[in-house]
């Protein structure tokens, strides 16, 4: 085991941002065998008071709502028809109960929304946490657009359902309470009153089955029309040149006709179902008026009860309207949840071994020991590759395109795990080290570096977010980036990608080098990192780096002679293994294959003007 438990524990994962909100309290149940709702339950119930509180309040509010028509009923019967009591008592009671109901409705609605938005943000942050833990191999095969749609519309559809679920349950409770009350008064009249209401549910479901797919189709067609117009704006020269105006109008007319069709289909479905759905509760009121009126005539029912029933019919249609919508949302939420779980169930491939130790104060002695690796199992990129690099040595790795040069640079920071063999730093197998300490010790710069849309200073300080401006400037100077940064309107605070300022390839590479220099790793991998940089600037960069990196190990994956020339030693890679090693001159003299490789790579030497485009 490595001797890494020193007294001083360095910070491998620096954090320079203050958390303004609590992290998620619970995780999604990892058991893929469980149902989708059960898996998300820990997140839903993470704040029990926020969850059960509003539900309890809602229950009271719903009962009060059911009580209101009953108060009017008593007022009509006792104060107006029988005239045995004063109306004032009932008015006061009505106002008190009604106000309380309205107030409690506000409380529970806001409470439910708040809980739902907590669930929403918990799911978002959990997904983000999981995404940052996944290995390179996951990102090699996944489109980010797909993940974003899951993180957005799918989370929203789950959240909507989870908000709506308790509300639906409460509405159902109201139905049960009101219906029980009606049954307690007059069973046949209660049954007659609600008889048309299930139709609201069935027809509503049929309407949605038509309209939901139609709305997606219509949206797509609106987009088609917009695309044609957009193309005609951007491609106006071509349209005019070929006198294509009329053809384009025909094309648009076609799209507009298709759009008209799907919009009319929607109108048709609405015309077919909506008027009936709207009138079914009125049919219930009609039944109450006819049958209930007849009962009043025969003194089996009071006029107040007749009124209360008329009100209940309107009130009770709500659950039937909501139910169908709720069921549909349930289907969508299930599909969405499964798409989210698909990501959450993806486990990271490269992980810390239990008991992995921290690598501290690395010297940079690197050994590749019979390394075999392929991105897929059927194609080996490296096949028995061995190489020892002494601490502080600068080694260039040279080979044809596809020889596995860049792969070596990806295996050392353990972006991928080996199929066979081992890589050791300071005598420790990298699999026995924590990932953060290993990656703290190994820095790399790729030929097409990714910059974030934050300021240039923040980009340079990406690996050390707390670095001072002086440190950032020093790193930028060493990477020969200082001058062009100063020339930008915003200097170091210029945000990359904003207002049309796009850096040239060479400038991006220099920022990436500054970023790696500021992180100050023990081992630095430069993967064609200066390919777009002018030879003279490259020389100055190397000069600046040599000062900062004195004693550091550097692996240079190189194309250009100018780059190779800076290495202490050159390794020639072919067929996934090192076939020759020596100084540039030695290989030139003794190794014909080396000269061949150099001939093929010299062609694509490019220069970089280095200015803002």
């Amino acid at each position, binding site marked *: 085991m490595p001797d890494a438990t020193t007294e001083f524990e360095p910070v491998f994962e620096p954090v320079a941002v203050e958390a*303004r909100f609590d*992290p998620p309290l619970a995780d999604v149940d990892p058991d893929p065998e469980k149902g989708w709702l059960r898996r998300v339950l820990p997140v839903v119930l993470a704040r029990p008071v926020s969850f059960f509180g509003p539900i309890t309040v809602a229950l009271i509010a719903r009962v009060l709502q059911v009580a209101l028509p009953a108060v*009017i009923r008593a007022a*009509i019967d006792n104060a*107006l028809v029988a005239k045995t009591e004063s*109306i004032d008592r009932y008015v006061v009671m*009505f106002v008190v109960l009604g106000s309380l109901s*309205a107030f409690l*409705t506000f409380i529970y609605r806001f409470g439910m*929304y708040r809980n739902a*938005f907590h669930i929403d943000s918990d799911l978002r*942050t959990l997904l*983000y946490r999981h995404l940052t833990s996944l290995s390179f191999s996951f990102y090699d095969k*996944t*489109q980010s*657009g797909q993940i*974003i749609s899951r993180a*957005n519309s799918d989370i929203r559809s789950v959240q909507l359902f989870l908000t709506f679920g308790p509300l639906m349950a409460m509405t159902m409770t109201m139905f049960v309470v009101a219906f029980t009350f009606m049954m307690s008064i007059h069973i046949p009249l209660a049954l007659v009153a609600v008889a048309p209401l299930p139709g609201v549910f069935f027809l509503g479901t049929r309407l949605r089955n038509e309209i939901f*797919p*139609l709305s997606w*189709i219509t949206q*797509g067609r*609106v*987009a*088609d*029309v*917009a*695309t044609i117009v957009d*193309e005609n704006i951007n491609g106006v020269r071509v349209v005019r*040149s070929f*006198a294509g*105006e009329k053809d*384009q109008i025909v094309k*648009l007319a*076609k799209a*507009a*006709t298709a*759009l008209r069709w*799907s*919009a*009319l289909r929607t*109108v048709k479905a609405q*015309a077919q179902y909506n*008027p009936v759905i*709207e*009138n079914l509760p009125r*049919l219930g009121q*009609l039944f109450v*008026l006819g049958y209930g009126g*007849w009962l009043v*005539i025969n003194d089996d029912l009071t*006029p107040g009860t*007749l*009124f209360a029933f008329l009100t209940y019919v309107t009130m009770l249609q709500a659950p039937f309207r909501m139910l169908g919508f709720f069921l549909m949302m349930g289907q969508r939420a299930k599909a969405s949840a499964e798409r989210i779980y*698909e990501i959450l169930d993806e486990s990271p491939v490269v992980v810390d071994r239990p008991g992995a130790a921290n690598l501290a104060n690395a010297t940079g002695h690197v050994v590749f020991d019979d390394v075999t690796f392929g991105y897929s199992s059927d194609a080996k990129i490296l096949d028995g590759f061995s190489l020892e690099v002494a601490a502080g040595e600068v080694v260039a790795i040279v080979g044809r395109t596809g020889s596995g040069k860049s792969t070596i640079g990806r295996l050392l920071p353990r*972006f991928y795990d080996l199929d066979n063999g081992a890589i050791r730093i300071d005598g420790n197998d990298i699999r026995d080290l924590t990932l953060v300490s290993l*990656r703290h010790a190994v820095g790399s710069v790729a030929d097409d570096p*990714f910059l*974030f*849309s934050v300021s240039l200073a923040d980009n340079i300080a990406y690996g050390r977010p707390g670095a001072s401006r002086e440190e950032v400037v020093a790193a930028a100077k060493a990477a020969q980036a200082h001058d062009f940064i100063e020339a930008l309107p915003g200097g170091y605070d210029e945000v990359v990608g904003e207002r049309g300022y796009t850096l040239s390839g060479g400038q991006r590479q220099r920022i990436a080098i500054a970023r790696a220099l500021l992180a100050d790793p023990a081992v630095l991998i430069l993967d064609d990192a200066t390919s777009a940089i002018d030879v003279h600037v490259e020389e100055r960069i190397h000069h600046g780096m040599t000062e900062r990196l004195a004693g550091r190990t550097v692996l240079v994956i190189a194309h250009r002679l100018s780059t190779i020339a800076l290495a202490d030693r050159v390794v020639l890679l072919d067929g996934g293994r090192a076939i020759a090693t020596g100084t540039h001159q030695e290989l030139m003299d003794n190794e014909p294959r080396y000269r061949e490789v150099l001939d093929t790579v010299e062609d694509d030497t490019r220069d970089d003007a280095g200015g803002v485009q």
Partner: protein
Amino acid sequence: MSMGPPAGSPFGGPSASATSAASGLPFAGVPAELADRAKKILDEEPDHGTPAVEFSQSEYAREPFTLRHFLGPKRAQIGLAVALVVVETLALQAGPLLTQIGVDRAILPKNTGLLMTVVAIYFAAIIVNTVMARVRILFTGRLGEDMMRDLRIRVFSHMQRQGLDYYTGEKSGRLLTRMTSDIDALTALFQDGLVNLFVQMLTLAVITVVLLFLNPMLAVITLLIVLPAMGLLTMWFKSRSEVGYARVRDRIADVLADLSESLAGMRVISAHNRRAHNIINHDNVVGDYREANLYASKVGAVYGPSSEFVGVIGQAALLAIGGRMVVNGTLSVGELFAFLLYLTNFFAPIQQLVQLYNSYQQGQSAVHKLRQLLATSPSVPESPHASVLRDLEGRIEFDRVTFGYKPDDPVLHDISFVVEPGETIAVVGPTGAGKSTVAKLVTRFYDPQYGAVRLDGVNIKDVTIESLRSQLGVVPQEPFLFNGTIADNVRFARDSASDADVLEACQRVGLGDLVARLPDGIDSLVHERGSSLSSGERQLLALARAFMSRPRVLLLDEATSNLDLQSETMIERALDVVLEGRTAIIIAHRLATAQRADRIAVIDEGRLIEFGTHEELLELGGYFASMHESWQLATSIGDDA
């Protein structure tokens, strides 16, 4: 790992919805769980055929576009719709009144026969409302959709009449919104807005009249309690929720931007141990989004119960005041019933009218913007007496042409030259000298301020734009490819071309290998703005398009300037094929291109300073000769700039 729904969908070819589905945007393609039903609906879609379209450059409706003009021709249909709405609303609002009659005249006096009559009338009212509503929705829906379709075509047609200057001006970025959000705003206004506005106002009026008829005093009290309170409350809600939802939209955009950047840069994040930092950062962004949501939902949570409270107060007032009246005998029980029932019907119209006012405003502003667009006269108008340009020999003549994009700032001064049929001339000169403008005047993208451009001796202003441009072939500097297949793009020049013609055109310009390599051949999609083809291949496709139009006159605007050496060689080879036997003007960026021309025109500062064969100009020892010299010097040290 399989990641969710397949992006390809059976929704009518390479549509924007299909392409954006791949990028995972909201409303991108139909979700998998709805796909079956969507397919069933689409199976019922008839073939709409090719719509008949009238298009004239010079003849179009010139009266100003106003709501009145727009609706004017449909006056009769709109009148019918109004009649339908009146019947529908009256039938709907009959319910509580019939209840009142039933209670007061039949139930309390115990008249079973009358009760049955009232019930029968009530039933008839329900049936009438159902049928009328159905007819009305269908009728106004069809009317609105027809008008929107015609308006889309009309606006787009007028856009097609506009010259290039219209598209390069400051406002070109907003042109798309004329056809999208502005027309959508009008659609919303016609589909729901106007009809609903009428329905709700009518409802309010009908209820008010009935209440006044039943009991004027109680009616006034009810209106005073409910109308102002609901109106103010709804207006408050409207303004607050707009603020709230704007904030939510901003915050979700932040969340998605942070997520998408993190995904794109995940390798850098891992390599630099930025996980912990970025997680906290994302927590913060998501937290801000949650706060915005909470604000918006609080507004919603206040509004619903508050209107409930207004309802409670209204009902309580009715009970207290109306109840006393019943006890005094000045109000019947049935009338109190009616008041209580109508009170509930009062809320929806008030709530909706506030929303509709907004939609009406948006519709009006859309009308205003569309009016401006439709009132813009084309900068290159076709003469009403324009004749059809007969088949060209290919003689081009510039006769003392002076032109500037801004009239007082000429780009070309007094240019005169003649290109004989079948001749190729190259136009060279420093950047900004006006080279490209020469080509734009031949295609009549712009009209010269002075002088004339003639083809075969005919002033191009006197011929129809279509007959002119259909005999010209243009290859622009930046090839623009349309969404669709390779064949669609080549066929752009000649609609009737067969697959064999398209294939031949591709092969002739050197795209044969590419087409053979692609699995779908000429039916391969080129994707948006041709992103999957290399810039050389895109330029070749533009050449194939020009070749397909079999023009007598060909104009090439720096067609090879943005290419690497290898692609340039391919293009040069293709040019030999395309240029054969045609009159051509090549706007040249590189002298190598200029050398293949029969004659060379040198333009500097908007003036034609030299014109002659390559040898003549070298001998002349002027501008071209010195350009040539420095070019030769540059190529000898390996730099061709």
